């Protein structure tokens, strides 16, 4: 395939990846948590990862705002 053909293929695959990511992100947020495990919490004192909004990095922030 010509050079620009590959370029278009590459860009379209990246766009497809972005769409898959957004759709799966929204679907993940929307699916209900299975019955038995609503209140599992990661009780860690410092934040192990930041996409999770219960991470303590935000808690200090949100508490001080209210």
């Amino acid at each position, binding site marked *: 395939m010509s050079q620009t053909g590959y370029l278009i293929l590459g860009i379209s695959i990246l766009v497809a990846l*972005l769409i898959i*990511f*957004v759709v799966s*992100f*929204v679907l993940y*947020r929307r699916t209900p948590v299975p019955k038995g495990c609503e209140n599992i919490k990661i009780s860690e004192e*410092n*934040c192990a*990862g*930041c*996409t999770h*909004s219960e*991470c*303590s*990095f*935000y808690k*200090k*922030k949100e508490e001080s*705002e209210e």
Partner: protein
Amino acid sequence: MSREKGYTKQNFLKGLFIENPLFISVLGTCPALATTKSIEAAIGMGILFTIVLICSNTLISLLRKLIPEEIRTPSYIVVIATFVTIVKMLTNAFLPELYSTLGVFISLIVVNCIVLGRAEAFASKNNVFDSFIDGIGMGVGYTMALCIMAFFREFLGTGGFAFGNIFTFIPYFKLQIIPKGYEISLFTTPVGAFIVFGLILAVMAFYKNRKAEYQAFLQRKERQRKAEEAKAKAAALAAHKPVEEAK
């Protein structure tokens, strides 16, 4: 957000001391341990990190009203990944030495907890100017923390400080303090990184405990003084009452 006068200054200083991203909230530890072999690498990493943080904070707070609530995180990840790619290309083109020293850790800024954390916690809720200042504060705080780590690791590990092999536009300059054979080269290895980081956190915890104890001591003295005053007043009152009866 109350706009009292010193808010901007306090917003900037918050990043340096009260909420230092590395030593207080212990975030972004991956690059902190890996790129602090020498002060130059730490400064380089700090500068790149601050650039990405400032640009992403500003752009995210610009778009905060546009981005719907549900897809906040994906759009932040895309914005941060764009800025990291731009910074990576620029470093590869104009600072090849820094690019080969930092290697993978420039791309790891994308998953750095601080950038995404500040974007979600601050930039998505405040106006552009505050986010910009917060970005600078956090960036400078992080760079300062990296330099402190790098200071100990390079000084103990290689016995001195060398400048000029990463930023090649500076003339090469090596300050050798500990004589050549007596430095502890363990500190340039990963083991040394863990030790230095652990000791710094321990010293800070010790200082915090000391201050807390001092505060508690002051409060106890305060309470004692108040109790004595109350007793003295009661005694004076009691002495005064019999005189009235006598009259």
